[in-house]
């Protein structure tokens, strides 16, 4: 499979080992407790959201194929295959990665990041160190900057645009998953 969203077999094996080690009660699928047992994830401000991304579509277990499918978003794309040797990211992979990140913001899946959702993320990241007013003003300013169609929320395109200078392919890649 030459498409950029699949993982090589050697790495699949590694992922399977990892899956099995996470699956403490050996049921062949992961439950939320398995994720929570990861200390690092518990300390992570958006750990809860990441977890929820795995348990999409209302199920409460994650089997191996969904596990892999989610993690495949973070596969580093092989740019050198590009025929003209251009240094751009393959647009499809970049969009896919950004879409994944966008969905972590947009919890109610309405296709937009509303002010409240942004505030929630900020609250989670900045914690108790700031006051509510500061959070409000940051969120306010962020929306002002990014919101081009003035609907007081950030759509996916606006999200993409505000990150156009960032090299998403590098940033959202884990070499483990090559």
């Amino acid at each position, binding site marked *: 499979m030459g498409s950029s969203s699949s993982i090589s077999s050697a790495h699949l094996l590694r*992922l399977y080992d*990892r899956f099995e*080690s*996470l699956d403490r009660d050996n049921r062949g699928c992961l439950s939320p407790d398995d*994720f929570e047992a*990861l200390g*690092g*994830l518990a300390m*992570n*401000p*958006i*750990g809860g959201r*990441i977890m929820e991304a795995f348990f999409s579509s209302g199920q409460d277990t994650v089997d191996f194929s969904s596990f892999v499918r989610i*993690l495949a978003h*973070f596969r*580093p794309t092989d*740019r*050198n295959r590009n025929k003209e*040797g251009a*240094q751009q990211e393959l647009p499809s992979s970049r969009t896919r990665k950004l879409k994944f*990140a966008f969905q*972590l*913001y947009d919890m109610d899946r309405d296709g937009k990041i509303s002010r409240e959702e*942004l505030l929630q*993320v*900020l609250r989670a*990241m*900045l*914690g108790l*160190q*700031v*006051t509510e*007013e*500061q959070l409000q*003003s*940051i969120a306010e*300013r*962020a929306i*002002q*900057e*990014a919101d081009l169609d003035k609907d007081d929320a950030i759509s996916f395109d606006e*999200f993409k645009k*505000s*990150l156009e*200078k*960032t*090299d998403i*392919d*590098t*940033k*959202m*890649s*884990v*070499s*483990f*998953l090559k």
Partner: protein
Amino acid sequence: MPSGTVSHGASGRLRGLFLVMVLVFLEGSVFTVAVASSDQHSPTTAHSGGHKATDHGSHNNTGKAFPVLDLNYENVRVPFEISLWVLLASLMKLGFHLVPHLSNIVPESCLLIVVGLLVGGIIRGTGETVPPVMDSKLFFYILLPPIILDAGYFLPIRPFMENLGTILIFAVVGTLWNAFFVGGLLYGVCQIGTETSSILSRIGLLQCLLFGSIISAVDPVAVLAVFEEIHINELLHILVFGESLLNDAVTVVLYHLFEEFSGIGSVTLLKGFLGVISFFVVALGGVLVGVLYGILAAFTSRFTSHTRVIEPLFVFLYSYMAYLSAEIFHLSGIMALIACGAVMRPYVEANISHKSHTTIKYFLKMWSSVSETLIFIFLGVATVAGPHDWNWTFVTVTVILCLVARVIGVVGLTFIINKFRIVKLTTKDQFIIAYGGLRGAIAFSLGFLLKKEHFPEREIFLTAIITVIFFTVFVQGMTIKPLVELLAVKKKQEAKRSINEEIHTQFLDHLLTGIEDICGHYGHHHWKDKLNRFNKKYVKKCLIAGERSKEPQLIAFYHKMEMKQAIQLVESGGGIKMPSAVPSTVSMQNIQPRPPTKPAPERAIPQLSKNKEEEIRKILRTNLQRTRQRLRSYNRHTLVADPYEDGLSDLFLKKQKMFQIEKKPASNKVPMIQVDLASPQSPDSVNLLDEFGQANQQEEEEQGLMMKPPSRPREAKKPSEEDEAKDPQKLMRCLSDPGPSADEDEDGAFLP
């Protein structure tokens, strides 16, 4: 680059150029006279000294009248000459930018070397001996540190760390490869060959290897000088530049190693092994020394809230001490300096005042700029002066070997490195990296340091080194810009980070850390996260004063942005909409004031609408009432109150107000936020203000900054029209100095 001079007419520029030329001629003539008279004058001073002694007892000598005007050059000779040199360097810099189009074609470093050649030629032409300006001590202890400190303090940490592996491989393995390749092949060439090689065949293997190690190091000064002007993308810049900085450790070790060996004359395996160990000691030791001094500096800056005037001095002193301390132990001074600057920066910047920050920035840029100019001029002078021994074979073979070694080294290493990188280096990248391997004054100084007893062929070496330097700086330096254009290499993006980018970048950092946790992979993000936690929990508490230690980075960034925007707002005359990102290009050599966003030929009073003016007046009035009560006695150690720092909180008010007025004329209930900057005394950085600007009575405790200029005898109740109207102007004047607008330096490097 010279955008500021576009507005001047051609006649204005020519006039300026003419004036500069006149100044230079005057100065040049004074200089040669000074050099000449320094020899003639010694008998005169002796004479007058003797005369004064005999005058003591007897008043019989009525011969000489009291010298109303006397000439005594000897006393001021050394400082005078130093100042002349620095003045010459600065005038040259001025002159280059006045000549149209010149700075676009020829990089400054080339022009400066030519100037040095001219000056050296003139001095030699007048029959004087050329002063040995390129003294190694002068170079290594005075000229080099400012440049390295400037580079280290403003080093963009994030790209540096991300590419650290690549940089290290290029620096260490690449330099070693270059040194041995060049040295070994040169020895081979010297042994075989024509009858001239009777001179050459005396050059031993160790000497050749030493020469190879001197010549193979990429020079940070030259790289900076050339790369600054071509605005290449960040990745390539940090790769070549990082390599030039880190290869200092390798160069130091190899140099001392081979120098030792050729002195002693025998090499044993043990010594070779010790050499390897000493490399690690030199490199890591240098970094450790730098980190130590950096922490000390950060810790000291925690207590400087009462003596803001000398804050910048601590930064410079600690860094210089780090450099010197590393040099004591023969550790790598450059790495110490870089480590010191990079480590202390986030903490020092959180502690010091805004003015000190600007001062540090300005001083570093100024010193490094002058140093760089002087280095290139001295290179030119030393070329004219230095004892030369031109040997065709040696020189040409050296130049060719250097090029070949560099290309092979880069290509070979990239092949290996690309297996481990996510973002691979393309052929274009490799070409630029290879082409950007410039040699410079460090190589020359190291060669100059060689002792004649051990190295009878010292002159041959020096000539070859100078030739290689000239070749790389002139040929490669001049052609790299058109090549970059030709190959369409990605240029530097004028990135001004928006708050969105910050938020999302942090978000993605957390996301990636989480994913790495799930994969069980201890990658890049994992360690970065651990480091950040450690930093937040322990280090920041020690090194940052007061409440700012708890301030998360996002908030600090937000404050900075708000402040910048407030400044822009005032500069553009109370502009309506939020000023969008203004790209700012700054190089060490081209500090020009940023053209205002709305071109205002004279700093006229901005045209504000009536009710806005009313609001401003109200705000200023209320704030004035409070601050007038804080008159303290004048003291040289307290800064004169700058409306800048005080007025900024007013500016925030004004800005918020105007913004609110613009955006939502109807709503009255939006709370406004006054942000207090860099004032560790106010623990809670947020005050709530309602729309009518009645701030809480919280700022009485500001200390140390507070003398109000006594020339403000205003009645609180009835400020006259004129005075109030003058205030925005006064503020604007104070703020009209935009400072070196290296915005991307600040923002980028501040947040890892």
